[in-house]
């Protein structure tokens, strides 16, 4: 029986092909020869059985054949009709046997024919290839194949993907495969119930891939119809022309596109049409000189329309009538109403969860912004709160710290070491600058806050220009070490960069250090004493001048460290400080002067406020800052002394 079959097969082959040595064919060559006509013909319509036969053969080298075929490296040798791999070798082709992989020598190009699969066939081949890649021994390649499918999903991948799940050994890859299978199912499975089940399985999932897969299912197109919504339309919602979702112009355009309305002319179009029909000083019987209002032009156009010189256009009355006679609606592109509804429901539930997660993300953002403001403001809180000295050059101390960090990085190449060096160096530099400024300027202006404000402004102007002269106007980079790159990601929505975490930690450290110094050290005790009653402190043997100098130096030094931190994520320019100064002052004022917790609360409030406003109006950060400042001005109406206010006689009222 078997022998008969083989003999018959051999006869068939003989008839079909002019080959001489088919006995020596390898199994793949045999298969190829069986589908020789289809392969050589390269038609999208007839090729499928050939590819299916290859893919289904279970032969080891099939994947290679398909790849070569796809890459147009599969040729037919003219001499004997044998399928070979060929690679160009100068003018000639180097041939390789398909089954054995032996070199078959080289032939001139004319002696072989290239099989050129068109793009349709190539995508069929690619789809067939997926199953081989999905079962590749190397897990990395399997994952790559999954990625490739996820990037460009299609219905053909569904079957091979399902086939590849059972044999998967790696649990992580298997989970991914199953997830991708459901993603493909919900889009491409012909069975509605299967799709709905797949959609439902994603309820509560926040992955962007899920949303990307579901969104096309709920995509709508805008349509119009006369009278009422036609049968069989999968309507998402009805629209009112002129409402928020459907501007009149769009409704008109829909009507025009549906052929229900003549085109509505714009002012420019009407003008062009009229100009084209100017005839000896008049248009359609109207004198050109009279056409200086739109009403006159409409009349002239209607006259032209009546005489057939211009295409008809809709009048206002026609537009109104057509609008009244039509309904407008959004229709799902997805034909199955059940699927669309379920997808919409899942998306809605996802949206709620996303909103919650976005709120968490926003909170993280706001916290990190708050910690930046806190860092920038804590030095001010010391100088302003403890000494009642306004230092408008505080922003420039921040800038000085950032530039110190930059200079240190020029000397020390290792980013980790350089940052660790930069922090104390920046503190030292700005501490010194603060002490010098206190000795030369501030000391002479105690109890004259407005003059201090202006004098420190003078210093701020000078320092800013000095930085510009030294470092130029372009931004200088302050690079963070590699271990601060990247972000801590919780899910597709919630993530926070390590650098912001580091700044948050730094802010907490500073809070702790500040509290320690003020509450637990002799210096802190003396500072508080001088703050509360300078004369009394002096008579107790405290040198208020020295304390003030140290306090001011401390505030300035902290500004320098804040500068390094801010420089890590913002550009270091001479304007760096002035970008933060107003917000820093707002932080101190809103929080309540003379209280570190107030500063913390102020920074938190301003950080959250700014992020909140940006979230409401994401396109426009400038406007967000404007609104924030206005809010603060109004806030100060209700709490002129800040969130935490000193009351009674201590307020010095």
């Amino acid at each position, binding site marked *: 029986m078997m022998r008969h079959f083989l003999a018959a097969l051999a006869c068939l082959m003989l008839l079909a092909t002019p080959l001489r040595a088919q006995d020596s064919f390898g199994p793949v060559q045999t298969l190829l020869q069986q589908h020789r006509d289809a392969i050589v013909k390269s038609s999208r319509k007839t090729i499928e059985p050939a590819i299916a036969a290859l893919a289904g053969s279970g032969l080891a080298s099939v994947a290679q054949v398909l790849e070569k075929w796809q890459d147009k490296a599969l040729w037919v040798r003219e001499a004997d009709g044998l399928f070979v791999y060929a690679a160009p070798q100068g003018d000639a082709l180097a041939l390789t046997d398909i089954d054995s992989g032996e070199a078959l020598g080289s032939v001139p190009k004319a002696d072989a024919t290239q099989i050129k699969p068109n793009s349709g066939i190539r995508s069929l081949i690619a789809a067939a290839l997926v199953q081989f890649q999905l079962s590749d021994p190397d897990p990395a390649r399997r994952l790559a194949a999954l990625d490739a499918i996820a990037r460009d999903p299609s219905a053909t991948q569904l079957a091979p993907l399902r086939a590849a799940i059972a044999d998967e050994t790696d649990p992580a890859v298997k989970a991914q495969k199953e997830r991708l299978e459901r993603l493909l199912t919900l889009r491409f499975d012909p069975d509605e119930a299967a799709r709905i089940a797949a959609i439902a399985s994603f309820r509560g999932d926040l992955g962007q891939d899920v949303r990307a897969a579901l969104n096309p299912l709920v995509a709508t197109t805008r349509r119009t119809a006369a009278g009422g919504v036609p049968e069989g339309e999968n309507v998402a919602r009805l629209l009112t022309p002129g409402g928020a979702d459907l501007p009149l112009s769009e409704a008109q355009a829909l009507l025009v596109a549906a052929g229900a309305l003549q085109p509505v002319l714009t002012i420019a179009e009407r003008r062009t049409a009229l100009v084209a029909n100017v005839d000896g000083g008049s248009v359609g019987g109207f004198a050109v000189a009279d056409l200086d209002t739109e009403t006159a032009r409409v009349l002239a156009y209607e006259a032209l329309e009546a005489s057939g010189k211009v295409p008809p256009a809709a009048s206002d009355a026609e537009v109104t009538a057509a609008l009244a006679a039509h309904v407008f609606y959004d229709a799902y592109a997805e034909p199955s109403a059940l699927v669309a509804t379920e997808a919409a429901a899942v998306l809605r539930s996802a949206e709620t969860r996303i909103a919650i997660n976005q709120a968490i993300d926003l909170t993280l953002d706001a916290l990190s912004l708050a910690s930046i403001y806190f860092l920038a403001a804590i030095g001010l809180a010391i100088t302003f709160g403890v000494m009642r000295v306004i230092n408008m050059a505080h922003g420039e101390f921040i800038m000085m710290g950032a530039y110190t960090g930059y200079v240190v990085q020029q000397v020390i190449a290792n980013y980790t070491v350089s940052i660790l060096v930069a922090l104390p160096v920046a503190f030292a530099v700005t501490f010194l600058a603060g002490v010098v400024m206190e000795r030369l300027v501030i000391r002479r202006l105690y109890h004259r806050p407005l003059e201090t404000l202006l004098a420190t402004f003078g210093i701020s102007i000078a320092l800013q220009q000095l930085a510009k002269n030294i470092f130029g106007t372009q931004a200088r980079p302050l690079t963070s070490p590699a271990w601060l790159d990247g972000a801590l990601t919780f899910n597709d929505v919630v993530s926070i960069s390590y650098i912001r975490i580091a700044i948050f930690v730094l802010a907490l450290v500073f809070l702790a250090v500040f509290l320690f110094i003020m509450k637990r050290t002799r210096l802190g005790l003396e500072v508080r004493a001088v703050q509360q009653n300078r004369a009394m402190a002096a008579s107790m043997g405290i040198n208020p001048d020295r304390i003030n100098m140290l306090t001011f130096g401390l505030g300035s030094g902290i500004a320098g460290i804040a500068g390094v931190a801010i420089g890590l994520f913002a550009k270091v320019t001479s304007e760096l400080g002035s970008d933060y100064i107003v917000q820093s002052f707002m932080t101190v004022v809103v929080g309540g002067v003379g209280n570190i917790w107030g500063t913390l609360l102020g920074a938190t409030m301003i950080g959250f406020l700014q992020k909140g406003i940006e979230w409401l109006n994401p396109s426009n950060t400038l406007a967000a800052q404007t609104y924030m400042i206005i809010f603060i001005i109004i806030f100060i109406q209700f709490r002129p002394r800040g969130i935490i206010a000193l*009351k*009674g*006689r*201590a307020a010095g009222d």
Partner: protein
Amino acid sequence: MSTLLEVQGVSVTFDGFRAINNLSFAIGPAEMRAIIGPNGAGKTTFMDIVTGKTRPDSGNVLWGERSVSLLRLSESQIAQAGIGRKFQRPTVFEDQLVSENLMMALRRPRNPLAVLFFRPARADHARVAELAAEIGLADLLGRKAGELSHGQKQWLEIGMLLAQEPRLLLVDEPAAGMTLAEREHTTRLLVEAAKTRAVVVVEHDMDFVRRLDCRVTVLHEGAVLAEGSLDFVTQNPQVIEVYLGR
């Protein structure tokens, strides 16, 4: 006798500290009253409440024949209603002439537009000169207030108070840092003023209070401890205890 000012059960707390504790007080339209009390008794806070600088947590302050509540009025409205205040430290406008200080205090319309278009008439100059004579500064009208001596500034401030023509004068330690002669002059000024209006003097100095010869209210820990003639209250054992700290 009708009352001009009545303070009813007023309390005020600063950060947990009760500065004024259920204080009640009343004074008639032409009466001199001295308020004495140790440091921290709430004397200055009492004045702050009456003049509108501090809002009490509870209680009421009623003013005049129609018993208007002062709690709803601002400092300037209270001042316009007829309550003048002299601070502990002399507060005159040191950068301005003595005449300018007095002119500013004259009882004339106080709203910005009226002030902007105000140009002093002969009568105004005459009144300023009269007041200056009364407080003994007639020769110093063209001098800056900052150049005056401490006592002269006190008188200038009293002169400014009189120029306001208030119905109630609140005077905080008018005799502090004065020589004996200056004190006598000050006493005369106050006694003269009390003939036509109510005067409340807050003072530490018992001699000075004795010179005023009027009813005395003793404050302690934000409440009235005793009230009566000076001799009467100095006999009060509680007052003696508070003052001598027994």
